[in-house]
């Protein structure tokens, strides 16, 4: 029964996307909305049924479906094959359920946009591509989903194509992710040559039993890591995510918070056996994770645009997940991924609703005191914020962050014989990050909702269609985390056992003060935020912008400008240089291929690149001209030629 449901799971959103985009002109807005939502809804129901069947089956049960052989040649074979195990079960649940909620919300949000058909066409295509990515059991099949997701994010970021800035942001996002995809492709090529097939099971088996040399393992892991970093907008590739906010808010919620950016984490979690063998790469992931975490938090602290704050916060939360992956606790990363999907989607959707009702005003300093105008939205935002900050016991965020922190504390990287990196410094920075997260999110809450009324007034009510998803997401954000308790509290490890029944994740000797520290940090952040921005006369209405460090941080630590100067400008110069095809001129300069007649060429165009062609054609033209001169119509001159020819002939014959 599973064999039919699994392909059906992917087919539904694909079919919905086909229907919506083909019937672009003819269907009304709500009809399109319903088609899209039903498509994703069916796949949500299917994924729930599949999860139930999977959980009722044997603990390590895996549902394998091979649709058809894709490429079978000597030395390499790849098929379109899907598999469902516990890891992908969690992912499809997140994708379909959060996706459904966001689609319902978007049906309301985008109702009066003329391009709604194209919007939902791309959104459902995105869900289909994400499901392919998550369910693929062949890495090449995963790559289809991987690039499909990148394409849909490009189409959706550049949705309002009338403004060139949006399309430029979309292209930037695609180029950055494309660089990562290319690195991932190299990784796949390396694995394919080593193991002859790209089935995940085969690859992991080959790697574990040493078919690949250690250097090869490290290199493959590095390639895959770079691919994941680009997709999840981590340190070297993070400039595209803040610009990606140019897209409609449901897109940001679905793609740039819940699903696409987490694809990298899912991939590394899926290949954790491979990464476990490459300790230097694990250390690198951890370090990059912590750096991104810290950088994201600091930048979010100084942002003035509501959606950009959420974008930077996503980057820093992803930093947490990468840190967890680096420290080997991939279950914690997946758990945090799930909870993060819930509360970040909630935050984005609420922000969307706020922006819609205040006439597309995104600057938090011009939004003030909205608590009275929209109590429901304020409450939802507050719930999301607290879950993001990880307020103890009450929110899901606390449990997943706690799980990561405990995982990080116990890790020891044996990089080289004498140099081992222990988890304590990383834990310290992570804790600081938690504090900063609480600080910036509550800064946003106090400024937007609690301060005195600013200019913009809120109009109308959030439609019912948009408030239901917010409600569900609030519930999930609050009690989504109970299924996984740290040991000090009642030992409830439902999630980790669900994920990986084999290795129980229990740290019996976990010090009690570890959990307390994890709980106190967000509270401290809340307190400091209340002191700075919560009280009637805020101490610093807005952090004084003149400090150079603040201005630098506001622009994402100048990385954008740096990339622009290092990569984009030289590339543009290079392309200008070749505007008139240097090689073409060099080639045509070999003379007779250009107009051989020399008359027209001498007054030909000047300019450095054309000197070559002039010289070549002038050579041929000159020869032809010289010969023309000989032919000057005088008989005696011809007779002289004949005599000359005679003497030369005689000389050659008699003398040689």
């Amino acid at each position, binding site marked *: 029964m599973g064999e039919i449901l699994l392909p059906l799971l992917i087919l539904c959103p694909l079919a919905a996307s086909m229907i919506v985009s083909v019937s672009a002109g003819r269907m009304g807005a709500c009809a399109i909305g319903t088609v899209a939502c039903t498509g994703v809804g069916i796949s949500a129901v299917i994924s729930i049924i599949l999860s139930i069947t999977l959980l009722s089956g044997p603990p390590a049960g895996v549902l394998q479906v091979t649709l058809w052989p894709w490429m079978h040649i000597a030395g390499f074979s790849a098929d379109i094959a899907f598999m469902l195990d516990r890891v992908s079960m969690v992912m499809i649940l997140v994708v379909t359920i959060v996706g459904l909620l966001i689609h319902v919300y978007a049906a309301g949000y985008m109702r009066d946009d003329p391009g709604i058909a194209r919007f939902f066409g791309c959104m459902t295509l995105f869900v289909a591509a994400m499901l392919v990515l998550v369910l693929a059991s062949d890495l090449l099949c995963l790559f289809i989903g991987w690039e499909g997701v990148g394409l849909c994010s490009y189409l959706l970021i550049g949705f309002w194509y009338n403004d060139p800035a949006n399309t430029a942001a979309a292209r930037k996002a695609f180029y950055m992710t494309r660089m990562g995809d290319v690195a991932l492709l190299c990784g796949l090529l390396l694995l394919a040559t080593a193991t002859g097939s790209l089935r995940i099971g085969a690859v992991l088996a080959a790697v574990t039993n040493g078919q690949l040399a250690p250097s090869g393992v490290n290199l493959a892991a590095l390639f895959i890591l770079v691919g994941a970093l680009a997709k999840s907008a981590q340190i070297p590739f993070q400039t595209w995510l803040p610009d990606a906010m140019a897209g409609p808010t449901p897109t940001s919620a679905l793609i740039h918070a819940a699903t696409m950016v987490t694809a990298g984490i899912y991939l590394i979690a899926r290949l954790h056996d491979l990464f476990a063998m490459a300790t230097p790469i694990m250390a690198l992931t951890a370090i990059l994770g912590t750096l991104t975490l810290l950088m994201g938090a600091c930048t979010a602290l100084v942002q003035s645009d509501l959606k950009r704050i959420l974008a930077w916060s996503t980057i820093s939360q992803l930093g947490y997940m990468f840190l967890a992956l680096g420290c080997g606790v991939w279950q914690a990363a997946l758990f945090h991924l799930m909870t993060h999907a819930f509360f970040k989607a909630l935050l984005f959707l609420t922000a969307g609703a706020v922006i819609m009702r205040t006439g597309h005003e995104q600057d938090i300093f011009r939004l003030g005191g909205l608590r009275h105008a929209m109590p429901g939205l304020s409450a939802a935002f507050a719930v999301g914020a607290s879950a993001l900050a990880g307020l103890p016991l009450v929110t899901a965020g606390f449990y997943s962050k706690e799980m990561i922190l405990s995982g990080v504390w116990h890790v020891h990287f044996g990089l080289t014989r004498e140099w081992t990196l222990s988890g304590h410094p990383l834990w310290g920075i992570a804790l600081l990050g938690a504090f900063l997260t609480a600080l910036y999110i509550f800064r946003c809450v106090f400024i937007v909702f609690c301060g005195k009324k600013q200019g913009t007034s809120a109009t109308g009510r959030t439609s019912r269609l948009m408030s239901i998803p917010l409600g569900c997401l609030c519930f999930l954000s609050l009690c989504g985390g109970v299924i996984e308790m740290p040991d000090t509290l009642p030992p409830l490890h439902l999630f980790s056992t669900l994920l990986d029944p084999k290795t129980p994740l229990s740290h019996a000797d976990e010090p009690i003060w570890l959990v307390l520290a994890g709980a106190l940090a967000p509270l401290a952040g809340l307190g400091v935020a209340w002191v700075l921005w919560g009280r009637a006369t805020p101490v610093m209405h807005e952090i004084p912008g003149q400090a150079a460090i603040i201005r630098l941080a506001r622009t994402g630590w100048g990385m954008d400008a740096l990339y622009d100067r290092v990569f984009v400008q030289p590339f543009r110069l290079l392309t200008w240089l070749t505007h008139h095809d240097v090689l073409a001129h060099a080639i045509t300069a070999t003379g*007779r291929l250009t107009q*051989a*007649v*020399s008359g027209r060429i001498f007054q030909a165009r000047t300019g450095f690149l054309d000197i070559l062609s002039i010289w070549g054609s002038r050579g*041929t033209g000159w*020869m*032809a*001209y010289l*010969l*023309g001169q*000989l*032919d000057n*119509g005088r*008989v005696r*001159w*011809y*007779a002289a*030629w*004949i*005599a*000359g*020819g*005679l003497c*030369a*002939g*005689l000389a*050659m*014959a*008699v003398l*040689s």
Partner: protein
Amino acid sequence: MIGHDIFLPTPLLVISSGIMIMLAAMVWRRSVGRSFAYGLVTLLLSLAVVGHHPGRMSGNGDSLFIQDRWTTYTAILIIFSTMCILFMSWRDVAHDGTTLVDEYPLLFMLGTLGALAMVFSANYMPFFLGLEILGISIMGLVTFRHRPVMLGYEAAMKYLVLSGASSAILLFGIGLAYGVTGSLRFMPPIATGEVPAALPVAATVMVLVGMFFKLSAVPFHMWLLDVMEGAPIPVAAFLAIVSKIAIFSSLVRYFGTGAQPPFLNDILSVVIILTIMVGNLLALRQASLTRLLACSSIAHVGYLLIAFLCPGHLQSGAITVYLAAYTASTLGVFATMTAFVVPDGPDGTVIAQWRGLFFRRPFLATAMSLMLFSLAGIPPGIGFFAKFEVAATGVEHQRDILLCVLVIGSIIGLYYYLNIIRVMMAAPSSPSSTLNRHARPELTALVIVLTIIVVIGGLFPARAIHPLLPAATVPPETRDGIRH
């Protein structure tokens, strides 16, 4: 010495009698049409008897004439070309009723007689006589130009002076050869004991120079451009085709198709390289179509000489195919040029006048393009197979330099041939009224026949050419004569 039984190939007889009849008719009453008719009839008759000869061919090879498949093949080509040229010139001479031009067809017949004499000659005497008859008749024909009459006379004067000089050189060479060998047999003199070694070599070189002048190989090519431009179109065709075929066939007869002596090899290679390069480079800069065709015929002589220089199994095929291709294509181009001429309109010698022909007279333009493609060596025409064969002989002999020159030459050749087609395809500059299509049936018929020959020859070269292959094997006795 010469007194033994007379052996004279029948075509020569037929044509000389034809000329006699034309002269007699001219005395009685002048009429251009009738003399053309006589000319065509005699040519047809000679074509019929081209292979036949009265009496027995003497075995010991000192007879004046010789007849074998090679002579038959070249004679057929010559007679066929002259018939086409007569067809061509019928229109632009006849309509001019004013001046008495009976001599025009007569001179053509005399020219053919000279050419055939050279082809059939096995002795210096008939060769020299034939050469002079051809030369003198060409001088006469060149002066028949209409509008800028001065061009004709100037061209004739130049041709006279230069061909006189070259015949003197040729005669001097023959004299030396006669001095060395004591016999006028038509073959390179062999150095016997008592004569200084340099003499026969000098004799051969001087004879070669005489022939090269007529073939317009490079150091001696200057005259061809001016004379062809000055002459009327049919005479230019006669010059480019008939005189070249006649001289080339006597060149093959004279040197035989075996391996050439070393000194000759070097001279020939140098001449070939010069001919191809200069021929093509000159053509690049020509604005007049006849001058361009002159340069192209110079270049084609160069390609032909490559085939001549590389003896072997493929050589005979290459030479016969190339001669046929060259004749057919050049005749075709000249026929199209005459068809292009309109009584009061442009005379077609300047390339610019051909602008936009595809849109005005599509049939003529397609015919011209097919001919030019064949000259350039591009598939639909027979020229493609000809160039292929020549390259084959070149490769068989690993003549790397000659092959490179062949390739470079044909690439340059591509340019100026395609240039004409490009001009024809350009939008017509002056929206001239569609030229009055007064039909000139015989010209259109001629153009159609020639196009068919070129295209069918290109598609089925085997059927058209190869049965004549054995013709190229030089008659055994002259070959033995050399080897005695």
